[in-house]
């Protein structure tokens, strides 16, 4: 049974989400603060984490950053805030996906399942790719830049593998959404922010990307 950790300070929402998620076949656990959530995740890691952004004490953004220091667990933000700035900040902090309240439970469940499936499935069956000093070994789940290991979240890793598998070809944001996030319709900002994060980690100079380049009006391309 897949496990979910719900970090949400509103007791009623948390209770209702736990009830609904259990009903949908998840093993759900809740935390009312970011600190408690982080503690629980360290003690017994869940398969997926749901985070609200407005939390007392450590807020949702900090919680994601803190979590990301040690953990590549898929993180889904469920927040009432829908400003682009909030969404981008949360994704940049390391969230894998973002939904705005009120989200229908069926959609929430579909997103959780997609996140889990991606986390569980191997990103690619190919043996290895190298692009200059960048080396990707999908089977081992490893990426190195100049022989130093690069820590990627699972979403970033899948995104990189998807681009590597189509090396030299342009992939549109839509294609990436479908392939990496498994969304038919989705927010293309997801792709942009993750590409940005990926560049921070794999490009020698993220502001002048050599490998992961933007093709204006079309999408992204990975090349050597």
């Amino acid at each position, binding site marked *: 049974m897949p496990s979910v950790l719900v970090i949400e300070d509103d007791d*009623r929402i948390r209770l209702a989400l736990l009830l609904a998620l259990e009903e949908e076949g998840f093993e759900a656990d809740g935390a009312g603060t970011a600190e408690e959530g982080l503690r629980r995740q360290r003690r017994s890691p869940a398969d997926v984490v749901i985070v609200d952004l407005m939390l007392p004490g450590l807020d949702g953004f900090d919680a994601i950053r803190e979590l990301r220091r040690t953990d590549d667990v898929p993180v889904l933000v469920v927040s009432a805030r829908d400003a682009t700035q909030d969404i981008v900040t949360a994704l940049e902090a390391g969230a894998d996906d973002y939904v705005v*309240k009120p989200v229908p439970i069926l959609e929430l469940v579909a997103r959780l399942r997609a996140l889990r499936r991606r986390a569980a499935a191997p990103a690619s069956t190919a043996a290895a790719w190298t692009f200059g000093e960048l080396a990707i070994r999908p089977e081992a789940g490893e990426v190195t830049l100049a022989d130093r290991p690069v820590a990627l979240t699972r979403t970033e890793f899948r995104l990189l593998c998807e681009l590597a598998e189509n090396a030299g070809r342009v992939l549109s944001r839509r294609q990436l959404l479908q392939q990496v996030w498994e969304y038919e319709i989705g927010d293309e900002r997801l792709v942009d922010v993750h590409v940005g994060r990926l560049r921070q980690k794999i490009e020698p100079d993220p502001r002048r990307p050599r490998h992961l380049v933007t093709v204006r009006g079309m999408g992204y391309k990975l090349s050597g």
Partner: protein
Amino acid sequence: MTLRTRVTAVFAVGALLLSAVMALLSYQLVRVSLTEERERAAVRAAYYNASVVRADLAADAPDVAEILRSLETTENRQVLVQRDDVWYSRTADEGQTSAIPSALRDRVRDGEASVQRVRAGGRPLVVVGVPLADGTAFYELDSLAELERTFSTLALVLTAVALLTALAGAALGRYATRSVLRPLTRVAEASEQIAAGQVRTHLDPAAEPDLARLTGSFNRMVDELADRVERDRRFAADVSHELKSPLQTLAAAASVLHRRAASLDERSAAAATLVVEEVDRFGRLVNDLLELARGDRPLERTEVDVEAMAREICRSRGVPPDVVHADAATWFVDRRRVEGILVNLVDNAVKYGGGPVAVRIGDHELVVEDEGPGIRPEDRETVFHRFVRGHTASDRATGSDGTGLGLSLVAAHAAAHGGAASVEDRPEGGALFRVRVP
């Protein structure tokens, strides 16, 4: 007639009247004084000549013709002498004598020197008669033709000046109205900008210091209105935002009820279904309200493959994606808003028109056609207003799960791009929604 034309006409007529009066007055003054001057000169010359003639006639057996010849005369000045009913002149011009009016002759015969202005053969003359001794009369005829020509030149010049002044008046009027109307033009432009959505358009108080009060009150009014609009918008946004949390609880709790409907008794299950459906509708209503409240947020334009988007939206709603026909697939628009337009138009067609039969993507224009009953002409504008449903929609209101905001969102998203939404009859029957998204 516009204010501008009126003011220009008034200035022109005023200038014309004034300059005409001035011209007439000066013409008259000049004419009178020059004529009198000329007359005095004629009289002086005549007296002088008469005294010469009188002296010469006193001699023995004077030759009148010879005397006359010795006088200094000009072409314009003729001298005649009547002596013993015989006329003497330097020229043999019979007409000259007839130019002397008989009244003048009578007075001279009675020994009285006289002056009279006459017109002979169309020529103006001054006739001066001086009685000499023994019933002899001396006459001098002074032509005023040259003076007359001067006067007509003067009249011409004055008329031209009057007309020019009138023209200058008209130009002045035009200029004056323009400078008076300029601030009003600015106010009009500002109002248009406000109507077009730039609600914080201000007038520059430094531009027209004379109209500081108008500028000030206009700007205050703009701020007041914009603040009020902003307050309303924020209120709607705050309310909707505050509803999100309880709605999330409701959505989650309702989904549990939904899952367990089978294990509930019939009445509870029916109630649970109602709760689930209404919570779902409530959620969409809040989302739509938030979208509307966000209406004037700046656009986030990106390259959007509208064709793929339209196909996807159709597919997700069980509409065959081949209803989508595209000429131009990629637009530079706000993705979320264009998605909102498409979703709401397709949903609208599904709910009230039996599903879209064509979704056309043209040059920044979206057309969604259905084969439903269409929209009545009197509803074609209001159907884009908030919470207004067309007649078909309200007939089905009991079974409808619409929020009543879909088409107003379409209009708001189009307006945010500077476009507009409209609906017309589809030629083959049904409704045709047309949305321009520049």
